[in-house]
Protein backbone atom coordinates (compact mmCIF):
# COMPACT_ATOMS: atom_id res chain seq x y z
CA UNK A 1 0.00 0.00 0.00
CA UNK A 2 2.61 2.46 1.19
CA UNK A 3 4.97 1.24 -1.44
CA UNK A 4 2.51 1.88 -4.25
CA UNK A 5 1.84 5.34 -2.85
CA UNK A 6 5.54 6.12 -2.89
CA UNK A 7 5.77 4.65 -6.33
CA UNK A 8 2.88 6.85 -7.45
CA UNK A 9 4.55 9.93 -6.09
CA UNK A 10 7.78 8.95 -7.79
CA UNK A 11 6.00 8.38 -11.08
CA UNK A 12 4.14 11.66 -10.70
CA UNK A 13 7.40 13.43 -9.94
CA UNK A 14 9.01 11.88 -12.94
CA UNK A 15 6.07 12.87 -15.13
CA UNK A 16 6.28 16.39 -13.82
CA UNK A 17 9.99 16.54 -14.51
CA UNK A 18 9.30 15.23 -17.97
CA UNK A 19 6.60 17.84 -18.51
CA UNK A 20 8.94 20.61 -17.38
CA UNK A 21 11.65 19.33 -19.67
CA UNK A 22 9.20 19.04 -22.53
CA UNK A 23 7.97 22.55 -21.92
CA UNK A 24 11.52 23.81 -21.90
CA UNK A 25 12.16 22.04 -25.16
CA UNK A 26 8.99 23.53 -26.62
CA UNK A 27 10.31 26.98 -25.70
CA UNK A 28 12.75 26.09 -28.47
CA UNK A 29 12.42 27.50 -31.94
CA UNK A 30 9.51 29.85 -31.28
CA UNK A 31 11.62 31.55 -28.62
CA UNK A 32 15.17 31.33 -29.91
CA UNK A 33 14.46 32.40 -33.48
CA UNK A 34 12.95 35.72 -32.31
CA UNK A 35 15.83 36.14 -29.87
CA UNK A 36 18.28 35.53 -32.70
CA UNK A 37 16.54 38.08 -34.94
CA UNK A 38 16.57 40.72 -32.23
CA UNK A 39 20.19 39.90 -31.50
CA UNK A 40 20.94 40.43 -35.18
CA UNK A 41 19.11 43.78 -35.24
CA UNK A 42 20.85 44.96 -32.07
CA UNK A 43 24.21 43.83 -33.44
CA UNK A 44 23.51 45.63 -36.72
CA UNK A 45 22.50 48.82 -34.95
CA UNK A 46 25.55 48.78 -32.67
CA UNK A 47 28.09 48.05 -35.40
CA UNK A 48 26.35 50.04 -38.17
CA UNK A 49 29.36 52.32 -38.66
CA UNK A 50 31.90 49.51 -38.93
CA UNK A 51 30.42 47.73 -41.92
CA UNK A 52 31.92 48.11 -45.38
CA UNK A 53 28.81 49.99 -46.51
CA UNK A 54 28.24 53.45 -47.94
CA UNK A 55 27.06 56.01 -45.36
CA UNK A 56 23.24 56.09 -45.12
CA UNK A 57 23.16 59.54 -46.75
CA UNK A 58 25.47 58.71 -49.66
CA UNK A 59 23.57 58.96 -52.93
CA UNK A 60 24.30 57.00 -56.09
CA UNK A 61 22.55 59.10 -58.74
CA UNK A 62 22.99 56.43 -61.40
CA UNK A 63 21.32 53.68 -59.44
CA UNK A 64 17.96 54.87 -58.17
CA UNK A 65 15.51 52.31 -56.80
CA UNK A 66 17.91 49.59 -57.95
CA UNK A 67 16.93 46.00 -57.33
CA UNK A 68 18.73 43.97 -54.65
CA UNK A 69 22.06 42.71 -55.94
CA UNK A 70 22.70 45.59 -58.35
CA UNK A 71 26.34 46.68 -58.65
CA UNK A 72 27.16 50.38 -58.58
CA UNK A 73 30.11 52.67 -57.94
CA UNK A 74 30.08 54.61 -54.72
CA UNK A 75 32.18 55.96 -51.86
CA UNK A 76 32.21 53.55 -48.96
CA UNK A 77 32.19 54.85 -45.43
CA UNK A 78 35.62 56.23 -44.47
CA UNK A 79 36.94 56.22 -48.05
CA UNK A 80 37.32 59.02 -50.56
CA UNK A 81 37.55 57.12 -53.84
CA UNK A 82 34.73 55.48 -55.70
CA UNK A 83 34.76 51.73 -55.57
CA UNK A 84 32.56 49.03 -56.97
CA UNK A 85 29.85 47.97 -54.56
CA UNK A 86 27.04 45.45 -54.66
CA UNK A 87 23.78 46.76 -53.16
CA UNK A 88 22.67 43.61 -51.35
CA UNK A 89 19.17 44.98 -50.68
CA UNK A 90 19.08 47.47 -53.53
CA UNK A 91 18.78 51.26 -53.31
CA UNK A 92 15.89 53.58 -52.47
CA UNK A 93 14.18 56.21 -54.62
CA UNK A 94 17.09 58.65 -54.38
CA UNK A 95 19.80 56.03 -54.75
CA UNK A 96 20.87 55.35 -51.17
CA UNK A 97 21.89 51.87 -50.03
CA UNK A 98 18.91 50.23 -48.31
CA UNK A 99 20.98 47.87 -46.16
CA UNK A 100 23.01 50.75 -44.78
CA UNK A 101 19.87 52.77 -44.02
CA UNK A 102 18.28 49.69 -42.49
CA UNK A 103 21.06 49.12 -39.94
CA UNK A 104 21.32 52.82 -39.13
CA UNK A 105 17.53 53.13 -38.95
CA UNK A 106 17.45 50.25 -36.47
CA UNK A 107 19.16 52.59 -34.01
CA UNK A 108 16.17 54.92 -33.86
CA UNK A 109 13.67 52.07 -33.53
CA UNK A 110 15.69 50.32 -30.84
CA UNK A 111 16.62 53.45 -28.93
CA UNK A 112 13.01 54.53 -28.69
CA UNK A 113 11.69 50.99 -28.37
CA UNK A 114 13.99 50.22 -25.44
CA UNK A 115 14.46 53.52 -23.60
CA UNK A 116 10.81 54.63 -23.55
CA UNK A 117 9.53 51.43 -21.93
CA UNK A 118 12.29 51.84 -19.36
CA UNK A 119 10.88 55.24 -18.37
CA UNK A 120 7.37 53.83 -18.37
CA UNK A 121 8.35 50.81 -16.29
CA UNK A 122 10.36 52.77 -13.73
CA UNK A 123 7.78 55.51 -13.19
CA UNK A 124 4.67 53.43 -13.77
CA UNK A 125 6.03 50.44 -11.89
CA UNK A 126 6.88 52.56 -8.85
CA UNK A 127 3.47 54.28 -8.88
CA UNK A 128 1.68 50.97 -9.33
CA UNK A 129 3.54 49.25 -6.52
CA UNK A 130 2.93 52.15 -4.15
CA UNK A 131 -0.75 52.30 -5.09
CA UNK A 132 -1.20 48.57 -4.69
CA UNK A 133 0.66 48.44 -1.39
CA UNK A 134 -0.66 51.51 0.41
CA UNK A 135 -4.19 51.46 -1.07
CA UNK A 136 -6.40 54.27 0.25
CA UNK A 137 -5.83 57.79 -0.96
CA UNK A 138 -2.54 57.08 -2.72
CA UNK A 139 -4.29 54.45 -4.81
CA UNK A 140 -7.26 56.68 -5.66
CA UNK A 141 -5.00 59.49 -6.86
CA UNK A 142 -2.76 57.22 -8.91
CA UNK A 143 -5.65 55.31 -10.48
CA UNK A 144 -7.59 58.49 -11.26
CA UNK A 145 -4.67 60.28 -12.88
CA UNK A 146 -3.76 57.18 -14.89
CA UNK A 147 -7.39 56.99 -16.06
CA UNK A 148 -7.16 60.54 -17.36
CA UNK A 149 -4.05 59.75 -19.38
CA UNK A 150 -5.64 56.54 -20.64
CA UNK A 151 -8.74 58.54 -21.54
CA UNK A 152 -6.76 60.14 -24.36
CA UNK A 153 -6.50 58.01 -27.45
CA UNK A 154 -2.77 57.29 -27.44
CA UNK A 155 -2.01 58.16 -31.04
CA UNK A 156 -3.82 61.50 -30.82
CA UNK A 157 -1.93 62.39 -27.66
CA UNK A 158 1.30 61.30 -29.28
CA UNK A 159 0.62 63.49 -32.31
CA UNK A 160 -0.19 66.38 -30.00
CA UNK A 161 3.09 65.98 -28.12
CA UNK A 162 5.08 65.59 -31.32
CA UNK A 163 3.34 68.64 -32.74
CA UNK A 164 3.79 70.94 -29.78
CA UNK A 165 7.22 69.83 -28.58
CA UNK A 166 8.64 69.32 -32.05
CA UNK A 167 10.01 66.01 -33.27
CA UNK A 168 13.42 65.13 -31.85
CA UNK A 169 14.79 61.92 -30.38
CA UNK A 170 14.72 62.99 -26.70
CA UNK A 171 11.19 64.42 -27.06
CA UNK A 172 9.94 61.22 -28.62
CA UNK A 173 11.54 59.04 -25.97
CA UNK A 174 9.97 61.21 -23.30
CA UNK A 175 6.54 61.27 -24.98
CA UNK A 176 6.39 57.53 -25.57
CA UNK A 177 7.73 56.85 -22.10
CA UNK A 178 5.05 59.08 -20.63
CA UNK A 179 2.40 57.21 -22.59
CA UNK A 180 3.58 53.84 -21.32
CA UNK A 181 3.37 54.89 -17.67
CA UNK A 182 -0.38 54.19 -17.08
CA UNK A 183 -0.36 50.66 -18.49
CA UNK A 184 2.79 49.76 -16.56
CA UNK A 185 1.24 51.19 -13.40
CA UNK A 186 -1.81 49.00 -13.95
CA UNK A 187 0.22 45.84 -14.32
CA UNK A 188 2.35 46.67 -11.28
CA UNK A 189 -0.67 47.58 -9.17
CA UNK A 190 -2.63 44.46 -10.08
CA UNK A 191 0.33 42.25 -9.20
CA UNK A 192 1.09 44.12 -5.99
CA UNK A 193 -2.53 43.85 -4.88
CA UNK A 194 -2.41 40.06 -5.00
CA UNK A 195 1.11 39.89 -3.58
CA UNK A 196 0.36 42.16 -0.61
CA UNK A 197 -2.12 39.61 0.65
CA UNK A 198 0.26 36.68 0.43
CA UNK A 199 1.70 34.86 3.43
CA UNK A 200 5.31 35.93 3.01
CA UNK A 201 4.35 39.61 3.16
CA UNK A 202 2.28 38.92 6.24
CA UNK A 203 5.23 37.04 7.74
CA UNK A 204 7.57 39.95 7.05
CA UNK A 205 5.08 42.31 8.66
CA UNK A 206 4.76 40.05 11.67
CA UNK A 207 8.55 40.08 11.99
CA UNK A 208 8.34 43.83 12.26
CA UNK A 209 9.86 44.65 8.89
CA UNK A 210 9.47 48.24 7.74
CA UNK A 211 7.33 49.14 4.72
CA UNK A 212 10.43 50.06 2.77
CA UNK A 213 11.98 46.66 3.47
CA UNK A 214 8.83 44.83 2.45
CA UNK A 215 8.47 46.89 -0.72
CA UNK A 216 12.07 46.51 -1.81
CA UNK A 217 12.81 42.96 -0.67
CA UNK A 218 9.43 41.20 -0.91
CA UNK A 219 7.15 42.97 -3.37
CA UNK A 220 9.42 44.44 -6.05
CA UNK A 221 11.34 41.22 -6.86
CA UNK A 222 8.03 39.46 -7.37
CA UNK A 223 6.51 42.21 -9.52
CA UNK A 224 9.61 42.34 -11.70
CA UNK A 225 8.90 39.22 -13.74
CA UNK A 226 5.33 40.09 -14.82
CA UNK A 227 6.56 43.61 -15.58
CA UNK A 228 9.33 42.20 -17.74
CA UNK A 229 6.83 40.15 -19.73
CA UNK A 230 4.71 43.26 -20.11
CA UNK A 231 7.81 45.19 -21.16
CA UNK A 232 8.31 42.88 -24.14
CA UNK A 233 4.81 43.64 -25.40
CA UNK A 234 5.36 47.32 -24.65
CA UNK A 235 8.53 47.37 -26.75
CA UNK A 236 6.56 45.88 -29.65
CA UNK A 237 3.82 48.50 -29.29
CA UNK A 238 6.27 51.38 -29.03
CA UNK A 239 8.28 50.31 -32.07
CA UNK A 240 5.01 50.41 -34.02
CA UNK A 241 4.18 53.80 -32.51
CA UNK A 242 7.56 55.22 -33.47
CA UNK A 243 7.17 53.70 -36.93
CA UNK A 244 3.78 55.35 -37.29
CA UNK A 245 5.19 58.72 -36.29
CA UNK A 246 8.17 58.52 -38.57
CA UNK A 247 5.89 57.31 -41.36
CA UNK A 248 3.94 60.54 -40.85
CA UNK A 249 7.18 62.52 -40.79
CA UNK A 250 6.78 63.37 -37.12
CA UNK A 251 9.70 61.36 -35.75
CA UNK A 252 13.43 62.12 -35.93
CA UNK A 253 14.10 64.78 -38.60
CA UNK A 254 15.10 63.61 -42.13
CA UNK A 255 18.85 63.07 -42.50
CA UNK A 256 18.68 60.39 -39.78
CA UNK A 257 17.25 57.23 -41.35
CA UNK A 258 14.40 55.45 -39.59
CA UNK A 259 12.33 52.47 -40.68
CA UNK A 260 9.00 54.27 -40.73
CA UNK A 261 10.41 57.07 -42.88
CA UNK A 262 11.98 54.53 -45.25
CA UNK A 263 8.60 52.85 -45.68
CA UNK A 264 7.00 56.21 -46.39
CA UNK A 265 9.71 57.23 -48.86
CA UNK A 266 9.21 54.07 -50.88
CA UNK A 267 5.49 54.65 -51.16
CA UNK A 268 5.58 56.72 -54.35
CA UNK A 269 7.39 53.92 -56.16
CA UNK A 270 5.35 51.11 -54.60
CA UNK A 271 4.26 49.86 -58.01
CA UNK A 272 7.62 50.02 -59.85
CA UNK A 273 10.02 49.21 -56.99
CA UNK A 274 8.11 47.52 -54.16
CA UNK A 275 11.30 46.37 -52.45
CA UNK A 276 12.07 49.96 -51.35
CA UNK A 277 8.97 49.85 -49.14
CA UNK A 278 8.67 46.17 -48.38
CA UNK A 279 12.21 45.55 -47.08
CA UNK A 280 12.04 48.05 -44.18
CA UNK A 281 8.40 47.02 -43.63
CA UNK A 282 9.47 43.39 -43.28
CA UNK A 283 12.28 44.36 -40.89
CA UNK A 284 9.82 46.24 -38.71
CA UNK A 285 7.21 43.47 -38.74
CA UNK A 286 9.80 40.81 -37.90
CA UNK A 287 11.13 42.85 -34.99
CA UNK A 288 7.66 43.52 -33.61
CA UNK A 289 6.68 39.88 -34.09
CA UNK A 290 9.84 38.78 -32.29
CA UNK A 291 9.13 40.89 -29.23
CA UNK A 292 5.52 39.67 -29.23
CA UNK A 293 6.62 36.03 -29.42
CA UNK A 294 9.27 36.40 -26.71
CA UNK A 295 6.75 38.12 -24.45
CA UNK A 296 4.21 35.38 -25.07
CA UNK A 297 6.69 32.59 -24.35
CA UNK A 298 7.93 34.28 -21.20
CA UNK A 299 4.37 34.68 -19.99
CA UNK A 300 3.71 31.03 -20.66
CA UNK A 301 6.83 30.28 -18.65
CA UNK A 302 5.95 32.25 -15.53
CA UNK A 303 2.19 31.81 -15.46
CA UNK A 304 1.98 28.10 -14.63
CA UNK A 305 4.61 28.50 -11.91
CA UNK A 306 2.72 31.47 -10.50
CA UNK A 307 -0.52 29.52 -10.36
CA UNK A 308 1.15 26.51 -8.72
CA UNK A 309 2.37 28.55 -5.75
Amino acid at each position, binding site marked *: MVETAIENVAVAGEAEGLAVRRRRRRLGLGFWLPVAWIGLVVFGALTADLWPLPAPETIDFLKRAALPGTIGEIELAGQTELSEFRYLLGTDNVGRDILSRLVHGARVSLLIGLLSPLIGLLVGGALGVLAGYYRGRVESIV*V*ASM*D*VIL*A*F*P*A*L*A*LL*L*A*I*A*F*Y*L*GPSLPNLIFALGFLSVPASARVARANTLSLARREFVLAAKAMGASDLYILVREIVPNVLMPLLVFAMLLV*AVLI*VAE*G*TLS*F*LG*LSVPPPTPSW*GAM*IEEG*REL*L*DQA*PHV*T*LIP*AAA*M*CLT*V*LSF*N*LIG*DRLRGLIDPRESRL
Partner: protein
Amino acid sequence: MRYLGRKLLRLVLVVAAVTTLTFLLVALLPGDIAYLVVGPTATPTEVEAVREQLGLNRPMLVRYGEWLAALAQGDLGVSLRTSEPVGEAILSRLPVTIELMLLAQVIAVALAVPLGVLCAYRQNRWVDRVVTLVGFAMISVPPFVMALVLIFTVSLRLGWLPATGYVPLSEGLWANLRTFALPALSIALIEWVALMRLLRNDMIVTLQEDFIAMARAKGLPAWRILLRHALRPSSFSLITILGLQIGTLIGGTLIIESIFALPGIGRLLLTGIFSRDYVVVQGCILFIAVAYVVINFLVDLTYSFLDPRIRVGGRDG
Protein backbone atom coordinates in the same frame (compact mmCIF):
# COMPACT_ATOMS: atom_id res chain seq x y z
CA MET B 1 -28.69 54.43 -9.06
CA ARG B 2 -25.75 55.17 -6.77
CA TYR B 3 -23.62 53.29 -9.24
CA LEU B 4 -24.85 55.48 -12.08
CA GLY B 5 -24.19 58.62 -10.04
CA ARG B 6 -20.62 57.58 -9.30
CA LYS B 7 -20.01 56.74 -12.94
CA LEU B 8 -21.48 60.06 -14.08
CA LEU B 9 -19.35 61.99 -11.61
CA ARG B 10 -16.28 60.24 -12.91
CA LEU B 11 -17.28 60.96 -16.49
CA VAL B 12 -17.61 64.67 -15.68
CA LEU B 13 -14.25 64.71 -13.89
CA VAL B 14 -12.44 62.94 -16.69
CA VAL B 15 -13.99 65.19 -19.34
CA ALA B 16 -12.97 68.23 -17.30
CA ALA B 17 -9.44 66.89 -16.95
CA VAL B 18 -9.24 66.08 -20.64
CA THR B 19 -10.43 69.56 -21.55
CA THR B 20 -7.92 71.24 -19.28
CA LEU B 21 -5.11 69.03 -20.51
CA THR B 22 -5.94 69.84 -24.12
CA PHE B 23 -5.80 73.53 -23.31
CA LEU B 24 -2.60 73.23 -21.31
CA LEU B 25 -0.89 71.41 -24.18
CA VAL B 26 -1.07 74.69 -26.05
CA ALA B 27 -0.65 77.08 -23.15
CA LEU B 28 2.25 75.50 -21.33
CA LEU B 29 4.28 75.06 -24.44
CA PRO B 30 7.99 75.52 -24.04
CA GLY B 31 8.52 78.15 -26.68
CA ASP B 32 5.79 80.20 -28.22
CA ILE B 33 2.65 79.18 -30.04
CA ALA B 34 2.93 82.31 -32.19
CA TYR B 35 6.31 81.10 -33.47
CA LEU B 36 4.77 77.76 -34.30
CA VAL B 37 2.00 79.48 -36.27
CA VAL B 38 4.11 81.86 -38.37
CA GLY B 39 6.94 79.41 -38.92
CA PRO B 40 10.67 79.48 -38.26
CA THR B 41 11.52 82.25 -40.76
CA ALA B 42 9.30 84.91 -39.22
CA THR B 43 10.61 88.26 -37.99
CA PRO B 44 9.97 89.33 -34.39
CA THR B 45 7.40 91.93 -35.50
CA GLU B 46 5.44 89.31 -37.41
CA VAL B 47 5.44 87.06 -34.38
CA GLU B 48 4.27 89.97 -32.23
CA ALA B 49 1.47 90.73 -34.69
CA VAL B 50 0.25 87.12 -34.64
CA ARG B 51 0.44 87.07 -30.88
CA GLU B 52 -1.69 90.22 -30.76
CA GLN B 53 -4.15 88.88 -33.32
CA LEU B 54 -4.67 85.56 -31.51
CA GLY B 55 -4.91 87.25 -28.14
CA LEU B 56 -1.96 85.28 -26.81
CA ASN B 57 -0.73 88.30 -24.81
CA ARG B 58 -3.46 88.00 -22.24
CA PRO B 59 -3.00 85.94 -19.09
CA MET B 60 -3.50 82.22 -19.40
CA LEU B 61 -6.42 81.99 -17.00
CA VAL B 62 -8.40 84.60 -18.98
CA ARG B 63 -7.76 82.70 -22.19
CA TYR B 64 -8.76 79.45 -20.52
CA GLY B 65 -12.01 80.99 -19.28
CA GLU B 66 -12.88 82.39 -22.69
CA TRP B 67 -12.00 79.14 -24.37
CA LEU B 68 -14.21 77.19 -21.96
CA ALA B 69 -17.09 79.63 -22.39
CA ALA B 70 -16.89 79.29 -26.16
CA LEU B 71 -16.60 75.54 -25.79
CA ALA B 72 -19.78 75.41 -23.74
CA GLN B 73 -21.59 76.94 -26.71
CA GLY B 74 -20.11 74.33 -29.02
CA ASP B 75 -17.63 76.80 -30.46
CA LEU B 76 -14.23 75.20 -31.04
CA GLY B 77 -12.74 78.26 -32.71
CA VAL B 78 -11.92 79.08 -36.31
CA SER B 79 -9.18 77.47 -38.37
CA LEU B 80 -6.16 79.74 -38.77
CA ARG B 81 -5.61 78.63 -42.37
CA THR B 82 -9.03 78.08 -43.91
CA SER B 83 -11.18 80.26 -41.59
CA GLU B 84 -13.59 77.33 -41.38
CA PRO B 85 -15.23 76.89 -37.97
CA VAL B 86 -13.50 73.88 -36.42
CA GLY B 87 -16.72 72.48 -34.97
CA GLU B 88 -18.37 72.39 -38.39
CA ALA B 89 -15.24 70.98 -39.98
CA ILE B 90 -15.26 68.10 -37.52
CA LEU B 91 -18.97 67.38 -37.92
CA SER B 92 -18.75 67.36 -41.71
CA ARG B 93 -15.94 64.80 -41.55
CA LEU B 94 -17.47 62.67 -38.82
CA PRO B 95 -19.57 60.38 -41.10
CA VAL B 96 -16.45 59.23 -42.96
CA THR B 97 -14.65 58.26 -39.76
CA ILE B 98 -17.73 56.53 -38.36
CA GLU B 99 -18.32 54.57 -41.55
CA LEU B 100 -14.70 53.47 -41.59
CA MET B 101 -14.83 52.32 -37.97
CA LEU B 102 -18.11 50.46 -38.39
CA LEU B 103 -16.99 48.67 -41.54
CA ALA B 104 -13.72 47.69 -39.89
CA GLN B 105 -15.57 46.31 -36.87
CA VAL B 106 -18.02 44.35 -39.02
CA ILE B 107 -15.21 42.73 -40.98
CA ALA B 108 -13.23 42.02 -37.81
CA VAL B 109 -16.23 40.33 -36.16
CA ALA B 110 -17.02 38.38 -39.32
CA LEU B 111 -13.49 36.99 -39.17
CA ALA B 112 -13.25 36.58 -35.41
CA VAL B 113 -16.48 34.74 -34.58
CA PRO B 114 -16.22 31.73 -36.93
CA LEU B 115 -12.50 31.35 -36.35
CA GLY B 116 -12.85 31.79 -32.58
CA VAL B 117 -15.57 29.13 -32.42
CA LEU B 118 -13.57 26.81 -34.62
CA CYS B 119 -10.42 27.24 -32.53
CA ALA B 120 -12.27 26.64 -29.27
CA TYR B 121 -13.88 23.51 -30.69
CA ARG B 122 -10.56 22.25 -32.01
CA GLN B 123 -8.53 23.50 -29.07
CA ASN B 124 -4.78 22.82 -29.46
CA ARG B 125 -5.34 20.93 -32.69
CA TRP B 126 -3.56 22.05 -35.83
CA VAL B 127 -6.36 24.41 -36.96
CA ASP B 128 -6.12 26.21 -33.63
CA ARG B 129 -2.32 26.36 -33.84
CA VAL B 130 -2.32 27.67 -37.40
CA VAL B 131 -4.96 30.33 -36.70
CA THR B 132 -3.12 31.39 -33.54
CA LEU B 133 0.16 31.64 -35.43
CA VAL B 134 -1.42 33.60 -38.29
CA GLY B 135 -3.07 35.84 -35.71
CA PHE B 136 0.25 36.47 -34.01
CA ALA B 137 1.84 37.39 -37.31
CA MET B 138 -0.98 39.74 -38.26
CA ILE B 139 -1.14 41.51 -34.92
CA SER B 140 2.56 42.28 -35.37
CA VAL B 141 1.95 44.18 -38.58
CA PRO B 142 1.70 47.95 -38.04
CA PRO B 143 -1.55 49.33 -39.54
CA PHE B 144 0.26 51.52 -42.05
CA VAL B 145 2.28 48.54 -43.28
CA MET B 146 -0.91 46.50 -43.59
CA ALA B 147 -2.42 49.33 -45.63
CA LEU B 148 0.57 49.49 -47.95
CA VAL B 149 0.67 45.71 -48.40
CA LEU B 150 -3.04 45.73 -49.27
CA ILE B 151 -2.58 48.61 -51.72
CA PHE B 152 0.34 46.79 -53.30
CA THR B 153 -1.39 43.42 -53.68
CA VAL B 154 -5.09 44.18 -54.13
CA SER B 155 -5.01 47.42 -56.07
CA LEU B 156 -1.61 47.68 -57.77
CA ARG B 157 -0.98 44.05 -58.67
CA LEU B 158 -4.51 42.64 -58.92
CA GLY B 159 -6.24 45.90 -59.83
CA TRP B 160 -9.43 44.94 -58.01
CA LEU B 161 -9.97 48.07 -55.94
CA PRO B 162 -8.86 51.70 -56.11
CA ALA B 163 -5.73 52.51 -54.09
CA THR B 164 -6.91 55.85 -52.75
CA GLY B 165 -9.74 58.30 -53.13
CA TYR B 166 -13.16 58.83 -51.69
CA VAL B 167 -16.64 58.54 -53.15
CA PRO B 168 -19.41 59.83 -50.87
CA LEU B 169 -22.36 57.62 -50.06
CA SER B 170 -24.65 59.90 -52.09
CA GLU B 171 -22.96 58.69 -55.28
CA GLY B 172 -24.01 55.11 -54.79
CA LEU B 173 -23.43 52.50 -52.11
CA TRP B 174 -21.31 50.23 -54.28
CA ALA B 175 -18.88 52.94 -55.39
CA ASN B 176 -18.69 54.16 -51.81
CA LEU B 177 -17.99 50.71 -50.41
CA ARG B 178 -15.28 50.12 -53.00
CA THR B 179 -13.33 53.10 -51.70
CA PHE B 180 -13.83 52.00 -48.10
CA ALA B 181 -12.97 48.33 -48.56
CA LEU B 182 -9.18 48.55 -48.33
CA PRO B 183 -9.05 51.09 -45.48
CA ALA B 184 -11.53 49.01 -43.44
CA LEU B 185 -9.61 45.82 -44.22
CA SER B 186 -6.31 47.38 -43.13
CA ILE B 187 -7.81 47.94 -39.68
CA ALA B 188 -9.90 44.76 -39.50
CA LEU B 189 -7.09 42.38 -40.45
CA ILE B 190 -5.28 43.48 -37.28
CA GLU B 191 -8.23 43.97 -34.94
CA TRP B 192 -9.82 40.56 -35.45
CA VAL B 193 -7.00 38.76 -33.65
CA ALA B 194 -7.78 40.19 -30.21
CA LEU B 195 -11.50 39.50 -30.67
CA MET B 196 -10.84 35.95 -31.84
CA ARG B 197 -8.53 35.14 -28.91
CA LEU B 198 -11.06 36.48 -26.45
CA LEU B 199 -13.95 34.50 -27.88
CA ARG B 200 -11.83 31.36 -28.13
CA ASN B 201 -10.73 31.51 -24.50
CA ASP B 202 -14.23 32.25 -23.18
CA MET B 203 -15.69 29.54 -25.35
CA ILE B 204 -13.21 26.95 -24.08
CA VAL B 205 -14.44 27.67 -20.57
CA THR B 206 -18.08 27.47 -21.64
CA LEU B 207 -17.55 24.18 -23.43
CA GLN B 208 -16.60 22.58 -20.11
CA GLU B 209 -19.96 23.49 -18.53
CA ASP B 210 -22.52 20.88 -17.62
CA PHE B 211 -25.19 22.10 -20.01
CA ILE B 212 -22.83 21.53 -22.90
CA ALA B 213 -22.19 17.97 -21.72
CA MET B 214 -25.95 17.60 -21.46
CA ALA B 215 -26.46 18.85 -25.01
CA ARG B 216 -23.79 16.46 -26.19
CA ALA B 217 -25.44 13.61 -24.34
CA LYS B 218 -28.69 14.40 -26.11
CA GLY B 219 -26.83 13.75 -29.32
CA LEU B 220 -27.11 17.24 -30.77
CA PRO B 221 -24.81 17.92 -33.71
CA ALA B 222 -21.61 19.80 -32.89
CA TRP B 223 -22.44 22.93 -34.91
CA ARG B 224 -25.76 23.26 -33.11
CA ILE B 225 -24.13 22.99 -29.69
CA LEU B 226 -21.47 25.50 -30.66
CA LEU B 227 -23.72 28.08 -32.27
CA ARG B 228 -26.97 27.72 -30.33
CA HIS B 229 -25.77 26.75 -26.86
CA ALA B 230 -22.19 27.90 -26.40
CA LEU B 231 -21.80 31.05 -28.48
CA ARG B 232 -24.16 33.34 -26.62
CA PRO B 233 -22.88 32.76 -23.07
CA SER B 234 -19.32 33.03 -24.41
CA SER B 235 -19.73 36.28 -26.28
CA PHE B 236 -20.13 38.55 -23.28
CA SER B 237 -16.62 39.89 -23.01
CA LEU B 238 -16.39 39.97 -26.80
CA ILE B 239 -19.24 42.46 -26.91
CA THR B 240 -17.68 44.60 -24.20
CA ILE B 241 -14.33 44.72 -25.95
CA LEU B 242 -16.08 45.47 -29.20
CA GLY B 243 -17.52 48.58 -27.60
CA LEU B 244 -14.31 49.60 -25.92
CA GLN B 245 -12.42 49.08 -29.15
CA ILE B 246 -14.49 51.75 -30.85
CA GLY B 247 -12.65 54.18 -28.64
CA THR B 248 -9.25 52.83 -29.59
CA LEU B 249 -10.24 52.73 -33.23
CA ILE B 250 -10.75 56.50 -33.34
CA GLY B 251 -7.00 56.79 -32.90
CA GLY B 252 -6.32 53.93 -35.30
CA THR B 253 -8.28 55.46 -38.16
CA LEU B 254 -6.00 58.53 -38.12
CA ILE B 255 -3.22 57.07 -40.18
CA ILE B 256 -5.44 54.90 -42.35
CA GLU B 257 -7.47 57.94 -43.41
CA SER B 258 -4.32 59.79 -44.33
CA ILE B 259 -2.93 56.88 -46.39
CA PHE B 260 -6.15 56.32 -48.32
CA ALA B 261 -6.98 60.02 -48.61
CA LEU B 262 -10.34 59.64 -46.86
CA PRO B 263 -11.65 63.01 -45.66
CA GLY B 264 -12.24 61.99 -42.03
CA ILE B 265 -11.35 63.51 -38.69
CA GLY B 266 -7.92 61.91 -38.66
CA ARG B 267 -6.96 63.63 -41.88
CA LEU B 268 -8.31 66.91 -40.55
CA LEU B 269 -6.07 66.54 -37.52
CA LEU B 270 -3.01 65.63 -39.58
CA THR B 271 -3.60 68.48 -42.01
CA GLY B 272 -3.86 70.75 -39.00
CA ILE B 273 -0.56 69.44 -37.68
CA PHE B 274 1.25 69.92 -40.97
CA SER B 275 -0.14 73.41 -41.54
CA ARG B 276 0.67 74.30 -37.89
CA ASP B 277 -2.97 75.22 -37.32
CA TYR B 278 -3.15 74.80 -33.58
CA VAL B 279 -6.85 75.66 -33.33
CA VAL B 280 -7.72 72.72 -35.55
CA VAL B 281 -5.31 70.44 -33.70
CA GLN B 282 -6.75 71.47 -30.34
CA GLY B 283 -10.32 71.00 -31.54
CA CYS B 284 -9.71 67.60 -33.09
CA ILE B 285 -7.83 66.24 -30.11
CA LEU B 286 -10.48 67.49 -27.74
CA PHE B 287 -13.23 65.98 -29.87
CA ILE B 288 -11.48 62.63 -30.20
CA ALA B 289 -10.66 62.44 -26.50
CA VAL B 290 -14.16 63.39 -25.35
CA ALA B 291 -15.78 61.01 -27.84
CA TYR B 292 -13.47 58.28 -26.57
CA VAL B 293 -14.34 58.94 -22.94
CA VAL B 294 -18.08 59.15 -23.58
CA ILE B 295 -18.16 55.98 -25.69
CA ASN B 296 -16.25 54.08 -23.02
CA PHE B 297 -18.69 55.40 -20.43
CA LEU B 298 -21.71 54.27 -22.44
CA VAL B 299 -20.22 50.83 -23.06
CA ASP B 300 -19.47 50.49 -19.38
CA LEU B 301 -23.02 51.45 -18.56
CA THR B 302 -24.66 49.04 -21.01
CA TYR B 303 -22.43 46.30 -19.75
CA SER B 304 -23.39 46.89 -16.14
CA PHE B 305 -27.08 46.84 -17.04
CA LEU B 306 -26.59 43.53 -18.80
CA ASP B 307 -24.68 42.03 -15.90
CA PRO B 308 -25.97 43.05 -12.46
CA ARG B 309 -22.86 41.64 -10.78
CA ILE B 310 -20.82 44.60 -12.05
CA ARG B 311 -23.22 47.12 -10.53
CA VAL B 312 -23.03 45.55 -7.10
CA GLY B 313 -19.47 44.32 -7.00
CA GLY B 314 -16.77 46.17 -8.88
CA ARG B 315 -15.71 49.28 -7.04
CA ASP B 316 -13.13 50.23 -9.59
CA GLY B 317 -14.67 48.38 -12.52
